[in-house]
């Protein structure tokens, strides 16, 4: 699974992209976030306030209960500010 982070989420996590192998108990975006937060303080800061975090699965906006699976491209970013 490919994970992408943009803007201040990228800065807090410490990198813009990473490949992870998804443990079987992680089935939704929300569970993925909880699992990431356990990996280190940068993730904890990035996902501190989920009201300002948006997610996309395979380049489509999704809600936190959207399913995730290995092979997906999952991106996290703040609300877009436009150009």
């Amino acid at each position, binding site marked *: 699974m490919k994970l*992408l982070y*943009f*803007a*201040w989420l*990228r800065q807090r996590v410490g990198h813009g992209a990473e490949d992870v192998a998804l443990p079987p108990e992680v089935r939704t975006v929300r569970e993925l976030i909880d699992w990431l937060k356990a990996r280190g303080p940068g993730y904890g800061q990035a996902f501190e306030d989920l009201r300002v975090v948006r997610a*996309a699965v395979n*380049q489509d906006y999704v809600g936190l209960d959207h399913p995730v699976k290995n092979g997906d491209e999952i*991106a996290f*970013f*703040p*609300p*877009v*500010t*436009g*150009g």
Partner: protein
Amino acid sequence: MIRVQREDFDVGAEIKRLTAGNHGIGGIASFIGTVREGASHDAASTQIGAITLEHYPGMTERQLEAIEAEARTRWPLDAVLIIHRFGRLEPGEQIVLVVTASSHRQAALESCAFLIDWLKTKAPFWKLEDTGEGAKWVEARASDDAATARWQPKPNAAE
């Protein structure tokens, strides 16, 4: 046609290329967004220098293609061009170009306004501003949502 690029663009050349040879066109509307100095997008901060636009390669293009397709369903358009830059941009530099061409001027004008409202508020870009207190990520604004909301079907409108 959409393009997401770091490089600057030449408005006159782009319009000429887009509309060359199509004599059914009666009107060409365009909008150029530029980096404005000294007036931050975010009222709480003060932009004094450049901005840096970050985007999501792949998804940004898909979203731009989708909004172009949406505009084409709403108005009879002969040609559409959206160019959006990313990276570091100094005050006065061009950020975004929208060009719409139609046989009817209202279709060109309205679709151009629709597209730029969307681009300035809903396009997957994130803006980092140089301020007096260092670089700061711009937060999404409620007033921009209002500009975009003009174009939504009303919730209570008849089907």
